């Protein structure tokens, strides 16, 4: 039998875990995507690495943390991040590099610096692809955060595994249902943020 407070605590832990990871992933990915625009070599390395990590089963990524980083919150964040990076980097890079070269040329011609071109021209044009990547990464992070309960991250995974081990359907659902709701919440929260920052002409 699970107490409601336990579920609430676990949900809160889960939210912290997922959003922390997403935040770190975004902070790491976006500069890497920008840097990849300027260096083909870096682009190659980054994309290869991200693709490679993506090919490893989630569970293995979680498990492999233990010998290196031990157990707890931080190894969990790193494990989830490794999986969440690819969709964000890849989509952001595609969004940034797909801007019409004539526009970039023109922006240079009227005297914009590289920084200003990135800030005012490339970034806004990349928003749709970028947010699609972040939303996908969010959902991925949410599901892997269930697995990281095994390495002591806490969160809803703990309740789900309890339910599984004890053949207790009620406990299982008490963990699974909030996890599903969280997935929806993540998608909605980023859709709202996207609407806020996307320029008007793309909204229709």
């Amino acid at each position, binding site marked *: 039998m699970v107490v409601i407070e336990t579920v609430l605590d676990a949900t809160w832990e889960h939210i912290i875990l997922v959003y922390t990871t997403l935040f770190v992933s975004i902070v790491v990915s976006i500069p890497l995507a920008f840097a990849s625009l300027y260096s083909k070599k870096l682009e190659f390395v980054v994309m290869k690495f991200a693709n490679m990590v993506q090919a490893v089963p989630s569970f293995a990524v979680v498990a492999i943390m233990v010998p290196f980083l031990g157990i707890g919150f931080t190894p969990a964040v790193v494990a989830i991040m490794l999986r969440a990076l690819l969709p964000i980097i890849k989509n952001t890079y595609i969004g940034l590099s797909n801007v019409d070269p*004539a526009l970039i040329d023109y922006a*240079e*011609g009227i*005297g914009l610096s590289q920084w200003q071109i990135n800030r005012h021209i490339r970034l806004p044009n990349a928003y749709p692809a970028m947010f699609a990547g972040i939303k996908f990464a969010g959902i991925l992070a949410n599901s892997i955060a269930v697995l990281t309960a095994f390495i002591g991250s806490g969160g809803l995974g703990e309740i789900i595994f309890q339910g599984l081990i004890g053949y207790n359907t009620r406990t299982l659902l008490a963990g699974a249902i909030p996890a599903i709701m969280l997935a929806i919440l993540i998608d909605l929260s980023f859709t709202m943020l996207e609407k806020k920052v996307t*320029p008007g002409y793309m909204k229709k």
Partner: protein
Amino acid sequence: MQTERLFDRIDSIQFKGVTKKYGSGFAVKDLDLEIEGGELLILIGPSGSGKTTTLRIMNRMIEQDFGSVTINGIDTREVDPVRLRRNMGYVIQNIGLFPHMTIGENIGLVPKLEGWDKKKTEGRVRELLDFVSLPPDMFMNRYPRQLSGGQQQRVGLARAMAMDPPLFLMDEPFGALDPILRKQLQKEFLKIKNEINRTIVFVTHDIEEALILGDRIAIMDQAKLVQMGPPEELIFNPANDLVADIVDTKRKFKHMDTLNVKDLMSPFEQKYVFEGKMNACDAVEEMANRDIETAFVFDGDELLGQVTMMDLMKCRMKSQNLADVARPVRTFQPLDSVAVALSELKKNGEYLAIVMNSKHPIGILISDEVLLKLI
């Protein structure tokens, strides 16, 4: 953030031995060129002749391999490129409006980056939109794709003028427009040019445009400057066959008397037809949709007159329809003499007439175009 003014006006721009290699060939070879302050210099020539390269060397979008370009004695390579470019207005063929920014944001981008406050930027944007005949309240908050080609090109011009630069670089700015619209924008551009009195370097491949707009024309071929001078000089004293070819000297003795209106008119198209009953405000939108700036108003078969986008925008009437605002337009028969038609247009200060075959419009006669077809 503020960029210091490099120069308030242009005294002269000098190219000395400018060379740009391109693979194994030359984009520009040993170019000497002097551009005088206040003139509109046309760079014209076949594609690959080096005209765009020459233009882009001026704002350092392309760096020359040898030689120097000095503006008022300042070597462009000694100036930070961003600063250099902020002192020049740049207009290109594909206009380059940023699709994710409104018209207001497009025009106000560089002022904003220069640290102007919101109010000052908005004031400048309004002033410029007014200047290019686009009512600010109607256009400021639209996105580029909601504008017709002609309107976008005007915005491009307004944006180049935002910082009031002493020098404009224009790379086939009217190249993508249909011929009649191009004529109209050239006409307006001439007016603007006289008003702002700036130095302009203008690349085109259209000799008519060059002859209409240019104070001097520089003809380029195979990376070299072939001849430079005022239009008359090129027409009457072409340096070689290529120049004669470009300015079409051989045809300039065509006899105007033997030609009639039918030979020199532009074909009439259905897109120019508007119903007299149409509301004037709706007509503005519709003209933008059809990408035209002049329309002919009909009531069934009967021609009521002409309206231009500028007429409609100036009066901003709510309840009038086109029949109320149409101005009379001169009509000619296909077999009328061109000479007579032209002198009649000229006498009345008009530049455009409609050619009717009994009751049907079949062509449009544009005076500049006729003259240019003759020379």
